């Protein structure tokens, strides 16, 4: 628990064993030792591998979409295939990639380390959550084999109850993955409450953990509703229960309420952990105490809470009552306030810092650029009368790619580079890192900026054919997406290279202050060979580094009694 016991405890500095022979990677050998591992770090890597795979899969599907959109009429895909591909692209990117991405991969790896714990509170649940995720993913992929789903990732009724495709196995897959998400959430909350090292008050927790905490709260409160929604949808198909299907007396708008009650908060499951990463990056690479620690920490909770009140902004033209549209629009804007607070505090942190433009920092700055655009366009479409025009056009597509790809994915990339030395024990190539970051940044804008224009000109989304007048913009966007793909291939190459040939990483290459850097790279099986004691805040760059490596002198006397 957090508070130090009343007995006097003695602490001393524990120097880091720079390159211990045994680390978590070679602690046990063999594939099986990975597949049934209870080590949060290995589970984190398992997740990281899986989400990378699904990101590439989703990305390749996106390139197919973009290729079809090169010409106004049919070129390489027919209408049904196109519909299935954007559905799969959306569903894979959302449920298989972005929701588990930061929390389950980086969060699993670093949450226990950042609080000086040996593991999460329930390691077995953690492993279970990974395998549940895999099982869900298999169901989802199975749906492709059995005829694919063509409903859009939103599974709106009654189309989803009528279309002849494999909606049941897809939704079952998503249903199952929900439990994986819930288990991760439970695990994180309990771990943060109960396993923090001595001295680590809430105010000394890295902001990444605050963001994971807020995320976990959303996960446990929203995901069950998704579960019941999908269960009802499945029952609708299997038994014809008639809650959502108008042909049976149900109400399709009710389905949308249920769906967005989960899926709007879910967008904060995606972005809030990204905020956490950005807080770490900005502080570390300007070597400066974070500005407005509490403002940033608490705004995550505020976003999580307000995020539950605004789901109806996806439904302004759905036929819900005007009254609720007005209320939802009003509440929607208030998410912008805590988000803005974060952004301004990050900018203020840069002030008088010592800014080092390493690759992770470049990603952080790219994030600020892209996410602000995505967020401000969110305000645009939250405005009632404008939304009527922009709803279900490419403007929306551009908005959510700016926040999800330009926000979450860019932050994830920043985080991966930042923690790469810690996770793998190797340094990546800085020059290639920067070049790739630039390529991704520019081609991303090239892909999605034109979509704002198309959208406001009236180009509807989920359109397989379109009017000639949009062809120029579509082609520009498609070419951008190819370059974007190239950027990711470059990244895959230099990161893979660094795994084998990269120079060995020191324990703390960036001069950071949070706990995960106070052990060897890669860490040993138990993270720390002692119980860490926290004296300073995680961003106290003005304190000498060795004071962050304190630990209890003798562990065994610490038990109660």
């Amino acid at each position: 628990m957090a508070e130090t016991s009343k007995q006097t405890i003695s602490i001393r500095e524990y120097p880091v064993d720079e390159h211990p022979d045994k680390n978590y990677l070679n602690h046990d050998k063999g594939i099986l030792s990975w597949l049934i591992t209870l080590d949060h770090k290995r589970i984190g890597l398992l997740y990281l591998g899986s989400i990378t795979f699904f990101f590439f899969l989703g990305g390749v599907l996106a390139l197919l979409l973009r290729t079809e959109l090169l010409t106004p009429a049919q070129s390489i895909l027919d209408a049904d295939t196109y519909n299935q591909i954007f559905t799969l692209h959306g569903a894979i990117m959302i449920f298989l990639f972005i929701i588990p991405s930061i929390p389950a991969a980086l969060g699993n790896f670093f949450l226990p380390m950042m609080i000086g714990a040996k593991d999460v509170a329930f390691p077995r649940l953690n492993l279970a959550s990974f395998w549940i995720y895999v099982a869900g993913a298999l169901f989802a992929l199975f749906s492709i084999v059995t005829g694919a789903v063509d409903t859009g990732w939103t599974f709106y009724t009654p189309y989803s109850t009528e279309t002849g495709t494999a909606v049941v196995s897809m939704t079952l897959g998503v249903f199952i993955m929900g439990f994986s998400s819930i288990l991760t959430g439970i695990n994180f909350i309990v771990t943060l409450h109960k396993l923090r090292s001595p001295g680590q008050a809430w105010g000394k927790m890295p902001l990444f953990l605050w963001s994971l905490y807020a995320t976990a709260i959303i996960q446990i409160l929203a995901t069950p509703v998704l579960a019941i929604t999908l269960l009802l949808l499945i029952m609708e198909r299997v038994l014809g229960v008639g809650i959502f299907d108008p042909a049976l007396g149900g109400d399709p708008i009710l389905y949308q309420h249920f769906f967005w009650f989960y899926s709007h908060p879910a967008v904060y499951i995606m972005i809030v952990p990204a905020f956490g990463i950005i807080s770490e990056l900005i502080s570390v690479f300007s070597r400066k105490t974070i500005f407005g620690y509490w403002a940033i920490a608490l705004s995550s909770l505020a976003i999580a809470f307000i995020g539950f009140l605004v789901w109806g902004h996806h439904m302004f033209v759905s036929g819900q009552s005007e009254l609720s549209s007005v209320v939802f629009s009003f509440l929607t804007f208030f998410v912008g306030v805590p988000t803005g607070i974060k952004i301004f505090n990050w900018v203020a942190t840069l002030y008088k810092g010592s800014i080092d433009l390493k690759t992770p920092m470049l990603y952080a700055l790219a994030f600020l650029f892209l996410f602000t655009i995505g967020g401000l366009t969110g305000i645009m479409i939250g405005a009632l009368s404008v939304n009527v025009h922009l709803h279900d056009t490419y403007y929306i597509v551009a908005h959510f790619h700016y926040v999800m790809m330009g926000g979450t994915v860019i932050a994830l990339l920043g985080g991966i580079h930042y923690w790469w030395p810690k996770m793998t024990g190797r340094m990546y190539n800085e020059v290639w890192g920067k070049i790739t970051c630039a390529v991704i940044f520019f081609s991303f804008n090239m892909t999605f900026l034109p979509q704002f224009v198309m959208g406001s000109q009236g180009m509807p989304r989920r359109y397989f054919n379109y009017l000639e007048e949009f062809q120029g913009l579509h082609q520009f966007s498609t070419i951008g997406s190819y370059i974007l793909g190239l950027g990711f291939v470059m990244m895959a190459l230099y990161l893979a290279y660094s795994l084998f040939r990269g120079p060995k990483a020191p324990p703390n290459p960036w001069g950071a202050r949070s706990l995960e850097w106070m052990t060897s790279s890669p860490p040993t099986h138990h993270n720390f060979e002692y119980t860490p004691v926290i004296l300073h805040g995680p961003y106290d760059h003005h304190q000498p580094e060795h004071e962050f490596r304190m630990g209890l002198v003798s562990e065994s006397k610490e038990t109660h009694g």
Partner: protein
Amino acid sequence: MAVAGALLVLTFLTVAVTWIQIPEPFNVIVAVGIAAIKASLVALFFMNLVRDSLLNRLAFVLSFLFLAIFVVITLLDTLFRDSGFPVF
């Protein structure tokens, strides 16, 4: 933990309340109200929330809060579908 006796009495009380409740014509609120009382009795004593940590109590309350949000805001739509534009 000397609540066992009290628990028994409470159980009978809650059951008894159920029985009286049936002939009552005036309904949903009463029915749900009584159910809520019964539920809180179970939560407080059987599940021992009276003595539990603040956090666990908070968890319990939070779930009701968010359910309430869900219901109330959804009703804002479903009850006002055809009433046109609200005039303030």
